[in-house]
């Protein structure tokens, strides 16, 4: 996916000015940046919810079609069961009911929620609700995945457990992914590359991470150095 010389203004406030960015197919690009620097705008433009004032957004072949979106909050239908929340997201692509059931169950098994199928969102913990949202995002047939700080406001243990659940599902079925976050650590653990916003014309920092995702350790010296660089860019922006 490519953002080519996009421009976006909110009144006098210029968020993007001939800004370009590329996400190689089937990789995760982590985007960090301070509030108001265009992270959510970037996601909304990628999803088609928002159009740039100028420039173009190109989805490569294999990236067209529906997108999956993981929001900051789980956004589950409160009066539908865990199972129905997944199954409903499959209706647009799978007409066969049995196939939908099997797929929903498969993804709920992958996030260890196959024993909570009949529960309603209010009967789940915050972490369980976000796991349902992750299962829904992967169950929904798409080639582009957009993540809007989905691990924010979770405790550290839960955050890493959900990151692991996400990585496991993603490795099984990689999709081009744009991951927006405030947290440099999350960005480094998940992304194939990290990018820092802060200048409307170009990323303040763009760096590929060559260590395999499963082998990444937050104590690794090179990752710690990258985190320091990201923090420095965020502070200076």
């Amino acid at each position, binding site marked *: 996916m490519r953002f080519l010389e996009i421009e976006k203004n909110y009144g006098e406030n210029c968020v993007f000015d001939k800004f370009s960015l590329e996400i190689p197919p089937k990789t995760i690009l982590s985007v960090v940046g301070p509030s108001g620097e265009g992270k959510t705008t970037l996601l909304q433009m990628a*999803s088609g*919810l928002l159009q740039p004032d100028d420039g173009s957004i190109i989805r490569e072949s294999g990236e067209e079609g*529906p*997108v*999956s*979106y993981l*929001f900051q*909050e789980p*956004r589950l*239908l*409160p*009066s*539908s*069961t865990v*199972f*129905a929340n997944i199954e*409903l*997201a499959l*209706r*647009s*692509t799978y007409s066969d009911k049995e196939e939908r*059931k099997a797929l*929903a*169950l498969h993804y709920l098994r992958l996030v260890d929620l*196959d024993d909570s*199928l*009949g529960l309603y969102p209010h009967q789940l913990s915050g972490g369980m609700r976000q796991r349902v949202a992750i299962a*829904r995002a992967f169950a*929904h047939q798409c080639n582009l995945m957009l993540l809007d700080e989905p691990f924010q406001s979770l405790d550290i243990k839960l955050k890493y457990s959900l990151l692991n659940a996400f990585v496991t599902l993603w490795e099984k079925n990689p999709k081009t992914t744009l991951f927006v976050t405030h947290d440099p650590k999350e960005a480094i653990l998940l992304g194939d590359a990290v990018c820092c916003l802060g200048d409307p014309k170009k990323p303040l920092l763009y760096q590929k991470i060559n260590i395999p995702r499963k082998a990444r350790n937050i104590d690794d010296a090179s990752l710690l150095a990258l985190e320091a660089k990201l923090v420095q860019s965020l502070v200076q922006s």
Partner: protein
Amino acid sequence: MRSVKRNLILLLSSAFLLIIWQVAAQLLDSQILLPGLVPVFSTLLKLMSDPVFTPNVLFTVLRALESFLIIVVTATILGVLSGRYQLLSVALRPFVTVVKAVPVMSVILLAFIWFTSSTVPLFSAFLMGFPVMYLQIEMGVKQLDSNLLEMCNLYGFSKKTKITYFLVPSMVPYFVTGARTTLSMVWKVVIAAEVLTVPRYGVGSRMQLSQVQLETDKVLSWTLIAIFLTALGDLVLEAVIWISSSVKQQLDKRSVSCVS
């Protein structure tokens, strides 16, 4: 245990009201001003065995139900449209504001000039109950969760799926609150309109005739019947809500048990 305690409190407070009534009746010592419990309840039993009791109650019930259904249908349709289209909401605002502000008695008296005595209760109940239901539904539509709607759109939900799984469940609390308030209001307005217009059959007509003949025990007996009808209406509505929610849960359980 909590429900036993709740029922006990309800029973005690009802008994307390009856005691106040009986004490007041004994203090006043006048069958015209305030008859005691025994004469009123014996009159009530006599009324219930009277052949005209059933048509009187039935006509009041039918008028209340008819007005309630008309209000629910029209207010739901217009409330949804107003919540969705700002222009319609603005266009209906003066009508709703005027109707909300007009005293019930003015509506009944004016309706009596315009319509026949059997239509007045329907018209008056509609005018009084409509704004309550309409405003609830309009508020429900305006307060739909835009985040959930965005999720439905991004995950490609069809219109039917959105209505069934997002719109209707989101509207249920507003619908139930509106329906509850409207129903209790409808009973009061229908009976008040019957009192003023005296149609051939109706609880309100009987109250009016008893009042003219200074039969306070009968007025109080018909009042007890009106209270009973209102309570019964509330109970039936609660039962419908409870049954609907149980059926939905059973269907959810069944669809999940087919999978696991």
